[in-house]
Structures are given as C-alpha cells and as structure tokens.
C-alpha cells in the first residue's frame, strides 16, 4: 500500500520549481498512462513531454523508507518533475491508476536495486579494508596543512584584527585553498569564516564598513582566532595520534574529526556505534542560509528525538556550483520514523542522518513528550549550556527546549521566565542565520506565551557578557509554532 500525501511529495522534491512543474503536468493532463502494480508497491506511467514519445517514469515504494524514482527524461534533477507529477497524480486521484503488470525492463531494474541493497547490507557487515600507506600519506599532508593554518593564525594575530584589509583577506583566501589541497576542508571553512566576518553580502571584503560596525565584530573575530588556535592544537594532537596508530578509528568522543573536514560515512557511524534504533523525530525549526565562507547553501533542520528529548540537527550542504542538482531540504511537519538513526560525534546538538525514514502524522502525545522532556529550570539549563560553551570547538549557539511559565516584557526587553522566576532575555543579536523572531512575540496568540515549551537558541555575547536566547519556535499541546525559517 502506497501511503503518500502532498507534504511527502513536497519533501521528496529537489526544489520548489520541481513541485510546481510536476503539478503543472498533472493539471495539463500530460500523463497519458497511469498504472500501479497489483501488489501496490510501484507507480508507473507515461508522461507526454516536448518530444514525440512520452517519458516513462516510475516511483518505486518496494523499500518504503527509501523510495526509488526512475524516469528516462534527460533531467539531472532527482526525482524529476515527471516522477513528482506521477506521485501528485496518485495523491489527487488514486483511482485513476489502473492495475497493470510491471514492464519487464522496470522489473529488472527493481530486482537489481533489491540485489544491490542486499549486497550493501552484506558488505556493511564486513570489516572495512584500510590502505594504511595511503592513510599515513593523507595524515602527513593534513599535518602540513595544520602547520599552514597555524602560521596563518599567528600572522593574523601578529598583524592585528584592526589591520585587516582587502589585500590581506585575498591572501588568506588564496592560502586557504592550500588547506583544501591538504584534505582539511573543515579547517579551510573555519579560516574563511574569519575573513567572512569582514565581508559584505556578496562575500567581498567590505572596505566601506563603518568604524562602529568594525568595532562590533572584533569580539567575534577574536573568538574565531581562538577557535583556529584550538583547532590547530587539538587537530595536530589528533592527527599525530592517528599517524602513530593507523588502526585508530576517527575520534568519536569529540567533533574534532568533522572540524578537520572528515566526511563521516553512514557505515562509519554505524561501525562506531553512533546510532540509535527506532528513533522518532519531530522537526522543531528549519532554516536555509547562504554560508559565504563555505560557498554553500546550508539547509539546517532542528529536530527533537521524541523518546530521549534530545535536540539534534540535520545539515544539507549544497555547494553553489552544484546547488541546482542537489535536493534542497524543506520544513517537515510529520514525525520521521527512522529505523537506524546515525549520530555524529558532538555535544549538545549533534548532527544526525538517516538513509531510510517512514513519515507519520504527529499526534498530541508527541507534543506531550516534548513538554515532558523540556528543561523546567532555567538555572540548571544555563549551567549545562555554559558547560558546553566553554569547549573551544563546541557549538557556540546550542538549541535547547525550555518549559516556561511566561514570556513577557521587562521594560522593552522580551524575557522568558520559568516556574521558579528565573529569567532569560531574548535577542536576535549575533544570530543572523535565521530571520529575527523576538518581535514576533507581540504577534503570537496570547495562550502561546503562557506555560508552553520554547525552542531556544542560546548565545553568549562576549562584549556584554550576557547569555541570551533567540526564540525559534514555541511548542504547544497541539502544534509547533515556528517563528523562523
């Protein structure tokens, strides 16, 4: 039985245009054949395109958690508008699909997919062969990269943050490319994050910046230099350890491997035991922003795992050059049932991934579970956040759940208060990845300001020495009211 709805199709589509175009195909009745297999595991049909022969497309749900989309059109988007249109046609009128035998060539492809999945499962259980010589060579190159990063960091401190200029920014960007050549893309991004602080919206060095604006970013710049310094120290120690012991697996207790740019494979995470079985996740917030330092669009989902109440993040990186061909993520309003959730090494909000997921509609019990797992004591929550923040390479803007008694005003400042009367001020300052949300407190329904759960992003401001929160969403007994995107 194929159980899909509009939101499923939306989330499967690579971008908004693909959904729009797919819907257009259905409206224009371009599907000349609509079929479903008698076991109801696959939809297939013919869609008239611009050529004389129609395109043959299909949506295979033999693995419900990981559907396979096929089409013989030349599009590089995946799934293409024809497969999306096919699903939309099914959502709109399942009766229009007549039962038919799956064409032979399609059946062969389906069998191959099953075989491939079986083979993959089989190989996943086998120990991974590591080419130790190649690994040692790579680590040596990375150590050389670390030396470059160290020198650059020291040079920047020597010159002084206040003396940053366009020429220096250019030099750093050129040198940063060397870090990419030494298998340190993470370190490269961290270095570019420093120069990006001085950039305009187009990513060019902003030489028109006012003195006050420059003054305001010095603390962040200093913090970033501190991070680079820690990255050099921890990175070198980690790499030297691995060079001396080639059998040593990537570090799983701290995020240092990811900081250096290690791209964790799902199999690696599984091998390292960084998984959770039968997880259920509800998305609390979602944003898509342009990361000038990485030269990528980043889609970030903030999720709560319903059984543990832990907050985790999904991240999809879409490099500018390939953005058109990589599926952009979207808000997800259902509960994702994940048989095997892979969790990256990390602190408060570790990154998560999965390869199979079955959606289900959220029920009131889900919101109740969120309420139960939210922190009720501001003091205790702040303590754990501070504990996290002191790590130089930790997430500096962690997201937490707080069950509050009231959100109100002290003077002009928006403040959230817990049952014991402990308070946190709200701010948008320094958190520009998401649009400002504090002023929305004046617009939300009155009942959402009393005794609900706040999804809050914390930030410590080094200049004012204040720990404040940005509201991302409010979870009530029946919904997640999103305040950002």
């Amino acid at each position: 039985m194929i159980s899909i709805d509009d939101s499923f199709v939306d989330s499967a589509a690579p971008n908004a245009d693909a959904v729009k175009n797919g819907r257009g195909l259905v409206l224009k009745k371009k599907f000349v054949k609509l079929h479903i297999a008698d076991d109801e595991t696959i939809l297939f049909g013919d869609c008239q395109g611009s050529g004389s022969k129609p395109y043959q497309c299909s949506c295979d749900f033999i693995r419900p958690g990981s559907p396979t989309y096929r089409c013989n059109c030349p599009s590089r988007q995946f799934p293409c508008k024809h497969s999306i249109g096919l699903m939309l046609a099914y959502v709109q009128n399942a009766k229009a699909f007549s039962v038919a035998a799956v064409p032979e060539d399609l059946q062969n492809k389906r069998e191959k997919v099953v075989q491939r999945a079986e083979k993959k499962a089989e190989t996943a259980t086998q120990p991974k062969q590591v080419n130790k010589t190649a690994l040692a060579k790579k680590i040596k190159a990375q150590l050389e990269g670390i030396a470059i990063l160290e020198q650059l960091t020291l040079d920047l401190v020597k010159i002084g943050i206040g003396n940053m200029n366009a020429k220096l920014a250019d030099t750093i960007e050129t040198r940063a490319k060397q870090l990419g050549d030494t298998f340190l893309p993470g370190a490269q991004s961290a270095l570019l994050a420093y120069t990006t602080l001085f950039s305009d919206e187009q990513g060019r060095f902003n030489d028109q910046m006012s003195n006050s604006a420059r003054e305001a970013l010095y603390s962040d710049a200093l913090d970033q230099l501190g991070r680079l310094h820690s990255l050099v120290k921890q990175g070198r120690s980690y790499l030297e350890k691995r060079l001396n012991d080639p059998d040593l697996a990537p570090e799983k207790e701290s995020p240092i491997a990811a900081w250096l740019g290690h791209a964790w494979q799902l199999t690696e995470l599984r091998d390292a035991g960084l998984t959770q079985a039968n997880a259920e996740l509800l998305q609390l917030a979602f944003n898509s922003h342009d990361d000038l330092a990485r030269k990528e669009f980043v889609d970030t989902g903030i999720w709560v795992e319903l059984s543990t109440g832990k907050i985790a993040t999904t991240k999809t990186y879409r490099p500018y050059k390939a953005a058109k061909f990589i599926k952009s993520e979207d808000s997800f309003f259902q509960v994702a049932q994940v048989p095997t959730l892979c969790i990256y090494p990390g602190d408060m909000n570790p990154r998560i991934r999965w390869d199979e997921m079955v959606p289900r509609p959220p029920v009131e019990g889900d919101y109740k579970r969120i309420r139960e797992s939210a922190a009720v004591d501001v003091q205790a929550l702040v303590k754990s956040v501070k504990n996290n923040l002191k790590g130089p390479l930790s997430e500096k803007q962690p997201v937490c759940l707080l069950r509050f008694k009231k959100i109100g005003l002290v003077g002009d400042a928006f403040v959230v208060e817990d049952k014991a009367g402990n308070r946190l001020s709200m701010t948008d300052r320094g958190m520009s990845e998401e649009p400002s949300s504090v002023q929305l407190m004046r617009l939300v329904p009155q009942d959402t300001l009393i005794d609900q759960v706040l999804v809050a992003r914390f930030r410590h401001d080094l200049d004012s020495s204040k720990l404040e929160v940005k509201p991302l969403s409010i979870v009530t007994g029946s919904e997640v009211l999103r305040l950002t995107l």
Partner: protein
Amino acid sequence: MSIAVLHEVYSEVRRLSVAGSVVAPGDFRLKKLVAPLKKTGGKAPIFARVAEVVEGVVGSDEKNAAERLLDLTSLVCSILFTQGTTGAEGTLVDIVSSSVKTTKKQVSARMLKPLMEALTTKGSGRLEEIRTAIDLGLFSDLRLVRPALGAIDDVYGEIADLIADRVLPTYGKAIYSELKSSFDPKGKGGHARRLKLMHVIDPDTSREVVKDSLSTGSAEVKIAAIQCLGDSSEDLSYLIEQSKAKAKDLRGAAYHALCKLPNAEALEVLVKAIDGKDSELVARSIGKQKPANLVAKSLERLKLQIPLLGSIKDKNKQGDAVSKVLDLLAIVEHEVSPEVEKFMKETFESASSIHKIKSTPSGADIIEQIVLVLMRASDASTRYLIDRRDDLPVGLFRELFEESLEKLKPKELFKIFSPYVYPKGAKKNSNEMQRHEAITEELRSSQGRYWMWTTDTSKKHPIDIGWLDLAIENDDIFTVTDLAETKHAKSAKYLNEKRADKRLKDHEGDLELTSALIRIGQPDAAVLVIDKLKSMIGKKGYSNHYGWINLASRLDIEMVPRLEELFSDPKLPKQWGDQLLDAINTIRENNPQRNEQ
C-alpha cells in the same frame, strides 16, 4: 568568584589582538592585572593559572607573542563563557499580543522563502508571486508579518499598495505600534500608507497622529491625513483650511472629503470653488459620490451660463467659459435628477446655436457631454435620443446604438436602425458610412466573439435575424461569420460557398469562415480543420498553426482519434505538440461523460 578582573583581562586581550600582538610584550596595562589575579588565585586556582598565562604574554618576545596571546584568549574566553549573566531585573509585564490569526498548518520554508524574497528584494515577477500568496492565504503565517510591513515602502508602488490594501489590515491592532514607530510624517508614499493604515486599524488612537500630520506632514502624508478625516466640526475646520492650500493635490483631497459632508459650510466652500478656478478640481475630486446640494448649485449656474456663451466675443474668454460649463456638467452628471434631465433636453434642443461656439473647447464638446449624460440617465432619455438620432453628433452614433441594443427589443432595433446600414453610394468617411460602420461593428461585438473566435455566450445579445439576411445580401463576409446562426440555412450556404471559393483559401478569412462553420454545427467543418492542419505540417514559411490548433480544441469528441493521429505524426513540429495535446485535453474536458465511454 570575582570576575571583574577577568573582564579586564579580556578587554586588554581584545585591545592587543586588535592592535596586533607585536605590542603585547611588556604591555603595561596587562602587567598591572597580574597582581590582583594572583591575589584571587589564592582562593580560586583558575585565577592563578590566568595570571601565569598573562605573565607569559607580558614576558613574550616578537616570535612567541602571538601564540601566547592566543593561549590567553582561549583560556579567558572559556572561563567567561561560563560566567555569562542571565535574566532581567524588574517587573515582568504581559505582552499585549495581537489578534493575528495564524493558520494551524504553517507554510513550508520552500513556499515561504521565495515569498520573503519577493517582499524584501527588488526585481520583476514579484507582484504575481505576492498576489498568488494572498489568494492562497499564506499571509496568515505570522513569519510574514514583518516582511509585509517592510513592503509598505516597496519601490514598486503597486506592490506597496497591494500589501497595504489587502494584507496589512488583516493583522489588525497587532501591527499598530510597529506602524507608528516607523511612521515619519515628513516621509513619502510609504508613510502616507502607514497613516491610512493606522486610521483603518484604530481610528481613535490614530487621531492625534492624523492631526499632527495635517500640520507637519509632507504633501503625500497630508493628503492621506485629509482622507482620514471624518464629519466632526473639528474635521470640517481642518478641511476648510486645506481647501485653501497652495498645492492642488491637497485642495483636491480636501474637496473630495468635503463632498462627503452634508452640511452648509462644506457646501459653501465647494460652491466657492466651482465659482472660482477650482471647478475642474472639484469635478475630478467627486469620485463616486452623489453630492445632491452641489449638483443643484451647479445646475443653477449652468442655467445661467450656457445662454451667455454665445455672447462672449473674446475666444479665450469664451473657451474658459465653455471649460467652466463642462466642469459643471461633469459635476451634474453624478446625480441626474428629473430636473437635470429636463435641463439637458432643453439644452440639446438648442444644439444648433451651441454648435456655433468655435472656441477651444467648443460648443460641440458641450453637446457631446450632454448627449452622454442623457444616454446614461434613464430609458426615457435614451428613447428621446433615439428619436433625435439624426441630430446627434455622428461620433456618438455607436454609443447610441449600443444603448439601444440594451434597451430596445430586437425587432424594434432592426426597424429603427437597419435603414442606416449598407448605404447605397455613400462615400468613405461620409456620415452615412460612419453610421453604417458604427452599427455593423457594434452588432459583431455584441455577439461575444473574442480572439481566436471563441464565444462568450453570457455576453451575447439577441438580435433580429434580419441583420444576418442584410449582411448576406450585401456580401459582408465578416459580419456574416460573426452573426451566423445554427438554424439559419442561408448563412450555412453562404459560408460553405465562401469556403469553397479558391480566392479565399489561404486568406486569413479562411480561419474565420471555418470557425463560423464549426459554431453553426456544419458537419464537414471538423474535417476541414484536420485537413488544414495536415496540409500545414512540413510546410515551410509562415502558417497560422496556433489559430488552427485553437480551432481544433472546439471540435467534437469523435474527432479526438484523428487529432491523436496527427499528434503522432513524426513530422509534427515540436512546438505544435504541446498545443495540440492541450486542444485534445480541452475536448475531453468539455465532453466528460462521452470521454469515459
């Protein structure tokens, strides 16, 4: 833990990092902090550690200063991150939250993001995106409130107006404070919209802002403020004051508001205006209102001024007087009472003397305006004009025929107007020919025919069949194609003959003829369309395939297999394919039951 000293260390580290680590060795201000750090270090060892690292920086040299400064940075920052202050002292008061109604199901980021961009950026295509979002009700998502508020200043006025008229009022009082805080009385369009919105959302609270704007606002804001005024005596005095303003737009806005007020003082100002130089401004400012008293006063003046027009010798002065009369007529037409109607008819009776006025504007302009007023006034006045049709300016003959088409029965219409069509021996551009063209053109358009010969039956007027007979008799092919009826055998015969006429075959009229044949249900017409399309495939040069495929969409369901056959023709140009498929789908949609069979 006394962290004040740590903050001092941090600010010194920050200062040195901004200036460059070369100045760090031996830094006096940093060195001064070692002692207090050591003192506190006795109680809290972390301070002793900081003191040690500070000493390391102070004692560094050019080679290692940067590294030591970074060590100190990391250490101090990690301590300070654990010392952030939280909370806010003072009484926690309730937020006066809004009445913004949020949708239960929030909008996905993929839908929201382009809309946010449409509201916050520049460029083409945004208006349509916003219109669609309004129709889909997306603006009830509260995340769009602030971008929508920002769009009130959009450089593209149409977007700003759309948002101000259809989106922002739905948020109610929730946005009032935001509107007020961003309102600048000296500002331009966006601020005028803000003021009007504040007035719509909360007239009482916005009262003071409106009053202030009247005295201190920019021209655009002042006009908006005038539009916000009501009928109180205080408002009246404001309006009277503004009616004396130098700026024409301000006076116009004041007159518009005064027209709404049913009191003597307002009327006095308006009368003064129509007697003075502002008569045109008053006439333009009335809008959709029906100011009865002003109409009466204007009528009085018309009665006095029209008879005097002929006696003015100076052409310029005569032209000014005619302009004034035209302004007064424009006011009077807002409320055509029996008295006005009577006056208009009397004036029309003396049209010949008025026609003699040759100034700019002229007497002919007055007559034209009077005819137009009478035409729309009542059935009786239309009937009056029909009776006097030969005296009407020829340029208004089509308007008269259009009105008659609405008001007369088909037979009577034919009887009265048919003598004017196909005049024998009439010259081009002669009055006779102009009347003929006015009638035939109006007849053709009265049948609801549109581009690509589609028919909107709701706009089709019943007409006497005599018109069709006359058109056939006079071989008026275009009128016949538009008027042809299913049950009129003569028109089918005529059209078939014309269709067979080789001289017309590749003419544009071929398409019109075939269209008419399809409309009147001629069985062979569908085959003609298919054959025509077939003949066009593979043919070089221009061909109106678009028109013919469009015609194909009106064929009967039985023709679908023929069209599908055409569709599978490998020679069919790619750009035709989509359109032909649409045509087939249209036929299927129009014949749902037969389609299922």
